[in-house]
């Protein structure tokens, strides 16, 4: 099963919870820790009811100290447990940069293979809506730069469950980037267990004129843009990369070989970003198939504005994506 076809419809946050609960039932080593995950049912109600089912030894409320509880979880992972660390927001993970980047991502390498770090860091990434510049971080480009970690970004409830289960089962540190704006969205999710493999992109929409590559929430803007562009006769193919590391460049290249045009939509800033990396790889792998250079849509190169209208203008949105596709296909 690669896309949602089940009859049951649940919220994105419920899909995340189901993934964690299933894995905790299957594997006693798995536990969840983070700010307000237990008594308060999670700041965003993702872990609702989990304290009741699994008890306070496996659903652990932590102090407001990302550096501390991340480091603690990494130690637990090195000693054989499989922690899930919830960051209320990935913006707060910045204070834990040393443990998550310097320890988790490098532990297997630095210990000469003696200690792995099977851990999942998960939480809200990207603009949540008027959270202003310090709490609206998109960390994908920043963190994907580091070798040794994996990074997944779910697009809908179906992927949220399937990818999170894969993340928990993975023996490496996985950075799992959710979106506050998607938590209440609903979708078809099977009740049975399933996983979605890392490194396999999914074509969300088939088209012949231009390939649009994105991850997570901006894919919804891509779909809006594709519907708008279809009225103009521009037929877009949308690829959901699903994971940034590993990156399924093969599927992306195959699509570009068909369309000869490509737009990468990445909600982080453009400089030294996931978008620039994908563009660079496409340029080097299928240069001769391109009708134009790979165009990119990012958040604007400024701190995230607080004002609602400015925030909307700052983020990748359907209007910007339409403009980029028109330019990439010489329809501007």
């Amino acid at each position, binding site marked *: 099963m690669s896309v949602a076809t089940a009859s049951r419809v649940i919220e994105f946050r419920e899909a995340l919870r189901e993934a964690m609960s299933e894995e905790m039932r299957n594997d006693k080593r798995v536990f969840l820790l983070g700010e307000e995950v237990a008594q308060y049912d999670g700041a965003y109600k993702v872990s609702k009811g989990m304290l009741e089912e699994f008890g306070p030894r496996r659903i652990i409320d932590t102090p407001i100290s990302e550096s501390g509880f991340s480091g603690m979880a990494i130690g637990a992972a090195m000693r054989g447990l499989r922690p899930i660390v919830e960051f209320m927001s990935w913006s707060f993970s910045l204070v834990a940069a040393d443990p998550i980047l310097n320890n988790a991502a490098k532990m297997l390498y630095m210990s000469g293979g003696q200690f792995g770090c099977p851990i999942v860091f998960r939480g809200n990434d990207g603009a949540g809506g008027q959270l202003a510049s310090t709490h609206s971080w998109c960390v994908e480009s920043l963190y994907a730069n580091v070798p040794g970690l994996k990074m997944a970004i779910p697009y809908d409830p179906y992927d949220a469950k399937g990818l999170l289960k894969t993340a928990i089962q993975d023996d490496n540190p996985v950075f799992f980037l959710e979106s506050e704006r998607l938590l209440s969205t609903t979708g078809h999710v099977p009740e049975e267990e399933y996983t979605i493999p890392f490194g396999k992109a999914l074509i969300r929409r088939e088209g012949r004129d231009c390939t649009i590559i994105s991850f997570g929430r901006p894919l919804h803007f891509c779909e809006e843009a594709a519907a708008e562009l279809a009225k103009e006769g521009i037929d877009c193919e949308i690829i959901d990369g699903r994971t940034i590391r590993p990156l399924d460049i093969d599927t992306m290249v195959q699509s570009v070989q068909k369309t*000869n045009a490509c737009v990468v939509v990445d909600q982080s800033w453009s400089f030294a970003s996931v978008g620039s990396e994908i563009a660079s790889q496409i340029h080097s792998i299928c*240069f*001769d*198939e*391109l*009708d*134009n250079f790979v165009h990119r849509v990012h958040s604007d190169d400024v701190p995230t504005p607080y004002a609602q209208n400015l925030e909307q203008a700052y983020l990748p949105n359907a209007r910007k994506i339409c403009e980029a596709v028109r330019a990439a296909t*010489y329809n501007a």
Partner: protein
Amino acid sequence: MTIEITMPRLSDTMEVGTILHWHVDVGDEVSSGDILADIETDKATMELQTFDDGKVVSLVVNEGEQVNVGTTIATLTGDIPAGGEAPLEELVQTSVPENSEVKSSASVTASKTEHLGSRVSPVARRLAEEHRIDLGTVTGSGPSGRIIKRDILQLVDTKTETTAAATTTQSSVVAGQVSTAAQPIKPLAPTAPWQEDKVVPLSNMRQIIATRLVESKQTIPHYQVTMSFDMDPLLEMRATLNEQLASSGVKLSVNDFLVRCCALAMSSNPEFNASFGGDCILYHGPVNVGIAVAVPEERGGGLVVATIRNADTKSLRSISQESQYLSNKARTSGLSPDEMGDTTFTISNLGMFGVEHFTAIINPPNSAILAVGAAIEKPVIRNGELAVGNEMSATLSLDHRVIDGAMAAMYLKTLKELMENPASLLV
């Protein structure tokens, strides 16, 4: 002095040639008469000799590469200086040839180089190569005049429109290989791994078939006229002759009789030995009958037309020998241009496969082609009575610019008289 060696025109219809093999390397000294390369044309593989003495400076075209006639394929330095090699600068600077014929090909090269420097998107460049579109003829619609995919595809579409009326016999041509390819094709989605479509690039032979037959079907106003022939007398005589001549190794085929009949009928119907010349009709002196020969799959498939020259003056026996020799050679080692050029009429015979009736596409510059079916035993009316006899159906495809319907009927009438009274073929 630098001498540019260009792709020569080795046959009338040759437009492109492929360097199969270079016999020389850069730096080799060559003298007049030396073989430089093997060149594959639309019809045969031929050796390219040098007419000059000198040293090979560059091999511009790689082995396996196909270029247009007139394209520079190699350069030589003439007159090797006594002191050794000419300095490189001098070689480069003196690349402007004196002879006007060479000059024209040099200017083509120069203009090509200019286009290579202009703005072209990578995929547009690749598509132009595939569809054999000279980028110099394309106006770019992208920023700063960049030639983009759309510009090339529009040209391909225009070509497709003009070939839309083209014969369906070409519809399976692989897209992008031949400019006459009817429509872009895409592979079908396989439902099982062993069902995957396979792309086979066109052989030289198939390219020339595609190009020439589309041209024929598009430009020649074809029409067909069919007639049936009573084959009993001819088959009877053939059996007698073959029996009597068996000891001398002669085995006449029905086709040998046909070649002779067609040739004799051409002598008395000269329009059938003529070509349309735009503002004139060219009546040929010699009567050269072509026979279509299928090339076996292991030799690349396709078909060639072998020429029986002066067929109207040849006996059945010599037609038979010549036709056997040429068919065998065509199927095994291939024919030389001489053995397949200059036809004035063509016979395509599928009778040996049991085909009853078909129509053929005229082989330009011929004005007619005869499509021959099998002699089939069937109920016939002879002298007002129902009898069993052998009948053969043959269909002429004709160029209406040269031959009108009544003339076609006259020709078939002559042919019928000859076929049904075969004794006259012996003299």
